[in-house]
Structure formats: structure tokens, C-alpha cells
């Protein structure tokens, strides 16, 4: 999985300082201790409320808002713990696929600005030294809010802006001109056979084929997609579509004609 090159802050110590400050804001003792105090007080309160509850609140000076935060927080933590224990097979080991069927919002970069003639708005230079972040097999701590530190900066591994622009052009064209979208996706497959967005490309291509009414081709490509990316979020909907469309074809073919 390719990752974006890190944000280049070499020319802006202010930016680096701001990011350091923002990343470190987790350790804001004031905020964390305040919330922890609120969350931590509730278990000591008698469950039936009454004098103990109101007395405790008077003693701590907490208001109605704090009760809500505390109650929901404690409830939530218990629920999350129960949930995590209930599902020992954590999602961390899953392949990092992503669905590609959601249309992008209009604020994304204009593909034209990332055309081969014009550099994409990826502002970071290509970094010569690539030091991938070590992937730990161990899952993240299930619940260690107080100890959860900001994550380390990511490895400098650039994604080709042209590849990004090509896919975005294809997605933009999908509704109005699925044929053109398909052409762009074919170009993507040709130019970036090992690119970062194979899942997205294939999902878009299947969509384009369906819009063009090329059902058999869409079905074949969907089967190949599911075989290649069985854990992709879009694999299940595609399988459902395959089952339905193939089933309906089958029914259509094999259904006996009604007797006169």
C-alpha cells in the first residue's frame, strides 16, 4: 500500500510547530483529566441515584452536562469493551481495501489541474529515501485512552498524482459518459498496472460496464474482482448483484413457458 509523501514542512517551521502542537494536544492534561474525572466518578455513585447521587454531584460541583458525559462515557466504554471481547477476530488483519462506489464531492481537485502537462496539487517533492513505517502485527490497544499517544509520522512513500488525476477524471465521466470513463480506466490499467488504486479502478469499470448495458462483461469483471479482492467492501454488494443478475438470467432462460 502506497502512502503519500509526508507533508514537507522544511520551509515552514511554523507549520511544523503547529502540527507538533496539534498532535501533542492529546496530552492536554487539563482536558483529559477533566473528562477522566467525570467518567471516573460515576461507578462510585449508587445505581439507584437518590441522595448518594445528588450528594456526590454537589460535592464535586458537576452539572447536568457532566452527568451526561459521565454516564454516556462509562456506558460506552463498557459497551466497547464488551464489543471487542465479543469479536476476537479484529478487523486489523483485514486487507486495507476501500469501496470506490461513492461519488467524490465537488471540492476535490480538478482533474485538469493534475493533467500530465500541469503538476497535480501534490505539493510535496518526491522523496528519495523511503523508510516504510514498520507494520506491527499486534492490534492496537483495545482501550487505553490515557496511554494512547499520537501516532508516528508516516513513511515517505509518494502516490503518483497523475494516477490520481486519471481515476478522478474517470469518475467524473462515469455518469455522463461511461464509455469515456471506461477508456480512461483502461488507460489507467495500462499505465499503472501496479498502481495504488486497482480496487477503485475495477469498481469504477464494473459500474461503467453496467451503465453501458454490457452486463456479461460487467459480470465477468465482477467475478474477477471478487476473486482478486475478496475482502474489499464492495465485494459483497457485487456478489449480491451477481447472484441476482445471474439468477434472473437463469430464471429467464430456464423458466418454463406458461401453459396455454
Amino acid at each position: 500500500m502506497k502512502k503519500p509523501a509526508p507533508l514537507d514542512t522544511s520551509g515552514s517551521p511554523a507549520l511544523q510547530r503547529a502540527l507538533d502542537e496539534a498532535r501533542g494536544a492529546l496530552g492536554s492534561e487539563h482536558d483529559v483529566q477533566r473528562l477522566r474525572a467525570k467518567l471516573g466518578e460515576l461507578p462510585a455513585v449508587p445505581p439507584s441515584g437518590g441522595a448518594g447521587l445528588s450528594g456526590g454531584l454537589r460535592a464535586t460541583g458537576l452539572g447536568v452536562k457532566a452527568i451526561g458525559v459521565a454516564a454516556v462515557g462509562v456506558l460506552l466504554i463498557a459497551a466497547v469493551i464488551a464489543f471487542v471481547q465479543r469479536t476476537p477476530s479484529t478487523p486489523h488483519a483485514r486487507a486495507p481495501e476501500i469501496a470506490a462506489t461513492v461519488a467524490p464531492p465537488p471540492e476535490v481537485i480538478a482533474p485538469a489541474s493534475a493533467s500530465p502537462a500541469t503538476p497535480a496539487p501534490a505539493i510535496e517533492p518526491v522523496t528519495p529515501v523511503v523508510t516504510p513505517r514498520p507494520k506491527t502485527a499486534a492490534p492496537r490497544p483495545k482501550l487505553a485512552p490515557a496511554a494512547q499517544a499520537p501516532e508516528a509520522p508516516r513513511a515517505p512513500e509518494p502516490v503518483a498524482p497523475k494516477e490520481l488525476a486519471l481515476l478522478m477524471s474517470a469518475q467524473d465521466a462515469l455518469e455522463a459518459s461511461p464509455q469515456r470513463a471506461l477508456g480512461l480506466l483502461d488507460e489507467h490499467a495500462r499505465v499503472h498496472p501496479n498502481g495504488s488504486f486497482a480496487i477503485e479502478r475495477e469498481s469504477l469499470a464494473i459500474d461503467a460496464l453496467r451503465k453501458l448495458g454490457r452486463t456479461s462483461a460487467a459480470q465477468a469483471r465482477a467475478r474477477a474482482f471478487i476473486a482478486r479482492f475478496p475482502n474489499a467492501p464492495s465485494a459483497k454488494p457485487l456478489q449480491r448483484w451477481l447472484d441476482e443478475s445471474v439468477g434472473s438470467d437463469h430464471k429467464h432462460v430456464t423458466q418454463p413457458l406458461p401453459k396455454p
Partner: protein
Amino acid sequence: MAPYVLRVLPRMGVREADVDDVAQEVFLAVHRGLAAFEGRSQLRTWIYGICIRTCSNYRRRAHRKHEQVTEAPVQNASAAEGPERRAQARQALTALDRVLEELSLPQRSAFVLHEIEGLDMHEVARALDCPKFTAYARLYAARKHVTSALRSLLPDGEL
């Protein structure tokens, strides 16, 4: 969970005075949705997604009330640092918040989740429920704006 929720909310434009309320909304939404959580993403990524949606609702409400959603930033730890350095760091963070406020919410979300929260881009895409390349595009656009706007807002000589 609470600490990173508390960290992300101010960067998403939630006023310090409103952080508790919005955090409570997040907790409620997580609690309500936990049973339906399918495990297709990491739990933390899923909670980030809830944070972003809750912030979006918060900002809409604030916009209707014509409120200014940003304000002075958060006090941070590192008491060991000198007061001058602390003041510089806070000034930088204030400037960053102001610049983030100029971004669209999706761009801001991509920047905050990746650059500050350290999520991988596939996690960012999952949290924002968008294709990965859209997440990249948002990140790149946000980076471009943040670096140029911050540079003009805080000439390097100041910090």
C-alpha cells in the same frame, strides 16, 4: 477513546466551550451504532468517522446561529517548555486552526485525520466514506492551502 476524540474535535472547529457537548454526542452515536458496527474498519477509524459527522452537524448548527466556530486553541502539555516556546506553539496552533477553518469540511477532515491523527489514507477514506483517491485529492488540496496560507499568516521570522 476520550483523549483522541477530545483532540480531534477542536481541530475540526469545535469551540472549546462546546467540546464536552460534542464529545457527548459522539459517545452517544458510538453507543447507538456499536451493535451495527460491522468491523470492516478499525474501531478507531469508525469512531473518527462518527467524530467527523458529528462535527459536521455541529458546524451546521453553529452556522445557522451565525456563530464563529473557531477560537483560541487548546492548552497543551509540556509544562517543561519555557513560556516563550509555549506561547509560540500556541500561536502556531491558533494560526493552524484559522487556516483549517478556511478549508471545506472534507478537506479539513482529510488533513486532520492524516496529518494530525496519523491515520493511513485507506483509514482516512473509510472514516470519510469516500474512495481512496478522493481522500488523497482532499489531502493534497488541504496541504496546498495550509502551507501557503500559514506561510502568509505566520512568516517564518515570527516563530
